């Protein structure tokens, strides 16, 4: 196995292990912190797949902003952040069954469908900031503008929701 394969499987093991802890740990704050490890592992896989700019955006937006927002929400809604939310077997078993079914179906489909296909990483164009910027602002500029309007709408919506008071329920 080449070093690319070794690095990939190491990152995959870290990502999946911490993702398992995100969904199973009973400490709410620990779940958010394990999410940082998961998202960092995914960013490492992006780097391996020659998507440099996407990897740094992943670190900036997800690890930097989204996890901080999640931690804020946990602190604001859950005064005792100690261990609780321990689901019983009546919740765990159906959820685990559905998740296993999803995993088996998706994994067997993609492995059977793309078994002989390989990624030539040496020939892949590295998605550097220059390359990505040129692509977005030359080819995808209209979707980009639509997306900025969407972000503005989401911002306005979040502000309006935060200003609502309890008597308006």
């Amino acid at each position, binding site marked *: 196995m080449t070093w690319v394969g070794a690095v990939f499987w190491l990152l995959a093991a870290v990502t999946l292990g911490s993702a398992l802890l995100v969904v199973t740990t009973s400490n*709410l704050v620990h779940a958010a912190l394990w999410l940082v490890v998961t998202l960092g592992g995914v960013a490492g896989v992006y780097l391996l797949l020659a998507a440099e700019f996407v990897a740094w955006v992943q670190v900036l937006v997800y690890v930097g902003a989204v996890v901080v*927002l999640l931690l804020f929400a946990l602190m604001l809604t859950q005064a005792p952040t100690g261990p609780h*939310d321990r689901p019983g077997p009546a919740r765990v078993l159906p959820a685990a069954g559905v998740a296993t079914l999803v995993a088996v179906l998706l994994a067997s489909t993609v492995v059977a469908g793309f078994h002989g296909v390989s990624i030539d990483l040496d020939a892949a164009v590295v998605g550097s900031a220059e390359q990505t910027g040129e692509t977005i602002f030359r080819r995808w500029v209209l979707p980009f503008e639509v997306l900025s309007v969407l*972000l503005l709408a989401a911002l306005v919506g979040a502000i309006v929701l935060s200003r609502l008071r309890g008597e308006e329920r």
Partner: protein
Amino acid sequence: MPLWWPLLLASLLFALGVYGVLVRRNAVLVLMGVELMLNAVNLNLVAFDAQLRDVLHAGQTLALFTIAIAAAEIGLGLAVVLLVFRTHGHVEPARLTSLADRDVE
């Protein structure tokens, strides 16, 4: 690198996200499961971009757009969660039955 390596990783990550959404009772933790699923989808997009050597970089661009939409979604979702906490005093989706059909209960 075989293409199915990142695709397998994405499938397992997606399944873990599904498990998190189904098993968690706290709305913030449900949102974390949604984030895991979105990351699995982005991984697929980037993997296919590298495999197809797309000159338009559609996969990477769409992954960036998905990250932006996920940020908007988490901002709005957490605003809703905080509003629910202020009005109801808890954030358990299963107990939010204000709009439920009273005759059924």
